[in-house]
């Protein structure tokens, strides 16, 4: 994709679009808006592919951060708009990735990794998990979390780092889950 190969983008799309859409859906709660966020993300990724640097993280990590950012932007715009007009009917339900022609072995491996990540999240201290999810999916700053949870900012910072460190320890090494 860094060399302008549209087929490479298509391959990456088939592989990662369901994960990116899940992130957008989690943040936005509406399929139509999640679709918009995913579409914007892939176009942005195509335009900025030259900036991606090997060794600074995975392609998926890069794309996830991008879609999260797009989704939070869309949500902020949507919240502003919804003050002025009645919100359209929402469709919060998730849809299985139909048409995603994943290799069965690949799919099984992905499902196993997903289960491992969920298990690790479940094993976290609920306060740390809450802070992580509020920040990552809720788009709240640490100050906002401290205010809404009525805890000192320093505590939120500690829970954030300890939560991520604990998550690192709970996840299988080398992404072999």
């Amino acid at each position: 994709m860094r060399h302008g190969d549209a087929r490479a983008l298509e391959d990456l799309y088939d592989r990662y679009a369901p994960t990116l859409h899940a992130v957008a859906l989690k943040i936005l709660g509406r399929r139509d808006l999640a679709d918009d966020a995913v579409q914007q993300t892939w176009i942005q990724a195509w335009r900025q592919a030259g900036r991606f640097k090997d060794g600074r993280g995975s392609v998926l990590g890069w794309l996830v951060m991008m879609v999260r950012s797009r989704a939070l932007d869309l949500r902020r715009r949507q919240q502003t708009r919804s003050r002025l007009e009645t919100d359209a009917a929402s469709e919060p339900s998730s849809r299985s990735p139909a048409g995603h022609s994943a290799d069965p072995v690949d799919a099984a491996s992905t499902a196993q990794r997903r289960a491992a990540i969920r298990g690790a999240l479940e094993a976290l201290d609920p306060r740390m998990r809450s802070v992580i999810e509020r920040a990552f999916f809720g788009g709240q700053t640490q100050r906002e979390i401290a205010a809404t949870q009525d805890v000192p900012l320093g505590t939120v910072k500690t829970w954030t780092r300890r939560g991520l460190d604990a998550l690192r320890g709970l996840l299988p090494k080398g992404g072999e889950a």
Partner: protein
Amino acid sequence: MTHDHDTFLDLCAGEALGSLDAAERARLAELVASSPARREELAAYRELASTLAEGLEPSAPSSHVKAAVLAAIADGGEASTPERAAEASREPGRLRLVRTWQWAAAACLLLALGLGALWMGARSDARRDLRDAEVRHSQERERLVADLETARAANTTLRDEYETAMQLLGSAQARVATLEATANGSAATAGRIVVDPRTGRTVVVLPQLDAPTDRDYQLWSIRAEEGQDPVIRSLGLVTRSATGATILVLDTMAGGELPQEIAMSLERKGGASTSSAPEGPVVAAAVLP
């Protein structure tokens, strides 16, 4: 681990989750600018945060999204390739400078327009938020005032009942009768009655009564003149007072006459269909002295 490094790692974790404020982000940028090792630590946290996405149930985008993406990139959504980046960096200095100024001017204009729009939007939002808050505040105040009035009324009723009961119990003329359970009743339906013969004010105390949820107890005043049919009159349903106890203050005088007896029956929910005779079994009765 030094305090500084500890702080740095806190910043990395916050940045990875996108939860730092502008000042913290600037501080972090400063810290990683000169240290490849720190950049790696930050990258590791970012990578860790991105695994949160992999824990979600995958969700397929609508089928038109892929087509729209492919159409957009075919229609001029040029990828920024390393080759193009290198080409850009080889542009003659003057041309690059002109382009830089053009971009800077355009950016300034856009920034000014954006800030203006944001300022206007923020003012409008703030006014709307203020109006909404005022409406909510007003509604909440009205609700609280209504609740307070209800509580005051209940309190007044309770105080009146209490004072009446105390006056009656302390009256030298008060007469006491026992409300005895009948064959249809039980110890729970027994109680005590205190009546002031001058006013007809009567206190009925039923210390153990526990009404079933689908039935109601009802009190009756009975007066019989010789040679005539007894006159029966409903004194109303037995309800718990605000204190939860079953202590009733009733006005039993009718036509200047006190009842000779008071009875209690177990009726369907809401009481007997007529106020002149019980329909359910009589569970307790008292003969007034």
